[in-house]
C-alpha cells in the first residue's frame, strides 16, 4: 500500500520516474522537490537524488531538475485539483495527503491588510514527509502510564525530531484499544496540525485506536473545549503545548475529570521548568508522569520517566 501511495502522489505522466523511489518506501523519510533542482530523497539518514529515468543517483548534477510547472502540477494533483479546499492548510504551510503523509510548502507569501497570511503563490518548494506509523513505539513506557488500571496524566518531553508525536500516537492507540495495564477508554484528540491521526478527508490515516475521536485541524484550546463538551472523553490528547492558553485549557479539561496526555518541546525536565507557562504546570502537579526522550548516537531513546515530583521512575 505504501508503495502505491508514493506513486499516486504524482500526476500520471510523471509516475514512471517514481517507481524506483517507491520501491524504497520502507527507508524513505522525505522527498524534497525544489524548482530548478533535482528531486532529493532522504533514505534513512542518507541523501540521494532522482535521475531523469527515475534511477537513484548520489550526486545532485546527475539528477533531473524539476521545473516550476512540474511543481505546480504535482501540487494540483496532491490537492485533487481543488486548491481552494486546502487553502487553510496552504496558508499554514503544509498539507496532509492520503496515507497521512505531510507536504510542507514554501513560496511567496501574500499578506492581507492586517498583515496575516492571505495565501502562498509561486509554491516552488515541496517537502513530502513520509509517514511511517511505528506500532509498539510506546511499549517500553506504557506500564508507567497506568495506575490501578487508570491512565495517568502524562507529558512527553522531547527535542524536535525525537519521535514524540510517534510515541504520542502509539500511546493514544494503546490507551484507546486497551492494554494489559488497563481497559480501552474513549480518547479525544485535538490534532491541530494533522500530525497525530494524519486525517485525510476526515478519516485518520494512522491507527489511533478504535475508541478515538479526532478533531482535525482545530486550534488546541477551542478543540479541547469542544471535545469535552461534545464527546465526553476519558482521556484527552494534544500535541505540542506552546502557550499559557494551552495550559489553561488543559487545566479546565483536568477539572472536568479528563486524563491528559500531551507533548512539549524540550531537552530535559529542567529546561521545561524554565518555561514560564510550564513552571506552574509542574508546581501544580498537573501531570503524574513525565516521559523525556533524547537522541543518543543518532537514535531516539527514552532518557527517563519521572513522577509528579520530578523523581526518576526509570532510566
Amino acid at each position, binding site marked *: 500500500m505504501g508503495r502505491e501511495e508514493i506513486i499516486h502522489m504524482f500526476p500520471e505522466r510523471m509516475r514512471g520516474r517514481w517507481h524506483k523511489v517507491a520501491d524504497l518506501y520502507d527507508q524513505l523519510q522525505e522527498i524534497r522537490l525544489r524548482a530548478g533542482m533535482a528531486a532529493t530523497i532522504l533514505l534513512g539518514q542518507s541523501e540521494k537524488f532522482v535521475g531523469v529515468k527515475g534511477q537513484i543517483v548520489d550526486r545532485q548534477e546527475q539528477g533531473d531538475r524539476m521545473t516550476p510547472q512540474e511543481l505546480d502540477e504535482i501540487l*494540483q494533483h496532491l490537492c485533487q485539483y481543488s486548491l481552494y479546499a486546502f487553502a487553510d492548510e496552504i496558508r499554514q504551510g503544509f498539507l496532509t495527503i492520503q496515507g497521512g503523509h505531510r507536504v510542507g510548502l514554501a513560496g511567496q507569501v501574500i499578506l492581507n491588510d492586517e498583515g496575516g497570511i492571505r495565501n502562498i503563490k509561486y509554491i516552488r518548494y515541496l517537502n513530502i514527509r513520509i509517514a511511517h506509523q511505528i506500532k509498539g513505539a510506546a511499549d517500553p513506557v506504557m506500564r508507567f502510564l497506568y495506575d490501578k488500571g487508570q491512565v495517568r496524566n502524562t507529558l512527553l518531553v522531547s527535542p524536535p525530531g525525537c519521535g514524540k508525536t510517534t510515541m504520542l500516537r502509539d500511546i493514544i492507540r494503546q490507551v484507546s484499544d486497551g492494554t494489559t495495564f488497563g481497559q480501552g477508554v474513549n480518547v479525544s484528540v485535538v490534532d491541530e496540525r494533522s500530525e497525530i491521526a494524519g486525517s485525510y478527508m476526515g478519516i485518520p490515516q494512522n491507527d489511533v485506536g478504535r475508541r478515538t475521536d479526532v478533531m482535525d485541524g482545530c486550534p488546541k484550546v477551542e478543540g479541547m473545549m469542544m471535545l469535552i463538551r461534545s464527546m465526553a472523553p476519558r482521556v484527552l490528547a494534544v500535541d505540542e503545548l506552546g502557550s499559557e492558553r494551552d495550559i489553561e485549557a488543559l487545566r479546565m479539561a483536568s477539572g472536568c475529570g479528563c486524563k491528559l496526555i500531551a507533548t512539549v518541546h524540550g531537552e530535559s525536565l529542567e529546561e521545561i521548568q524554565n518555561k514560564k507557562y510550564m513552571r506552574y504546570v509542574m508546581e501544580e502537579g498537573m501531570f503524574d508522569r513525565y516521559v523525556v526522550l533524547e537522541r543518543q548516537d543518532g537514535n531516539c531513546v527514552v532518557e527517563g520517566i519521572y513522577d509528579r515530583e520530578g523523581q526518576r521512575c526509570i532510566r
Partner: protein
Amino acid sequence: MYKIVGTFCILAGCAGFGCARVRQEKDRIRYLRGFIHVIRRIQDEISYGKHTLPEICRILADESEAWCAPYFEEIYRQMMQESGRGLKEAWDGQMKACMQDLPLQEEERDIIMKLPAFLGLQEETRQAMSFSQSVELLGRKCRQAEDAYENRAKMIHSVSILAGLLLSILLL
C-alpha cells in the same frame, strides 16, 4: 388504394422526421439546462461546502439525472479509487462519452470540456466564480435555443408536412 396508403406513409414519415427534429431541439434545451444546473451545483459545493472536486463528482453522481450521473461516478472512481488519475484526463474522457449522443452544438461541448482549465485558485469564492463565465455562455446558448424553439418547431412541422405532400405529389 396502394397510392393512398403510400401517400399516407410518406406524410407520416415526413411528419415523424419533423417531430424528431423538434424533439432534438427540445432535448438540446433540456441538456443545456442540465449542464447549467451541474455547473451551478459545482459552484455551490465549492463555495459553501468547500468539497474537493472528486467529492463534488460523487455528490453529482448521487443527485444528478441518469444521463450524466454515471459519468460523474466514473470521474470520482478514476480519481479516488482506480489510478489517482488527473481531473483533466478523467473529465475529458467521461464528458466526451457523456456528450457523445447528446444533441449539443460544438461550441456548447467546448464550454463543458474546458471547465477544468478554470481550476487552480486558492480561494473558494473566487474558484466558484471562475465558472461563472461558462454558466453565462451556456445560459446564453440556452436562452437562444428557447427563443428559437417555438418558431423553429412550427417551421419544422410545417416544412416536414409540406415536404411530405410534395414528395407524394411527385411520386403520384
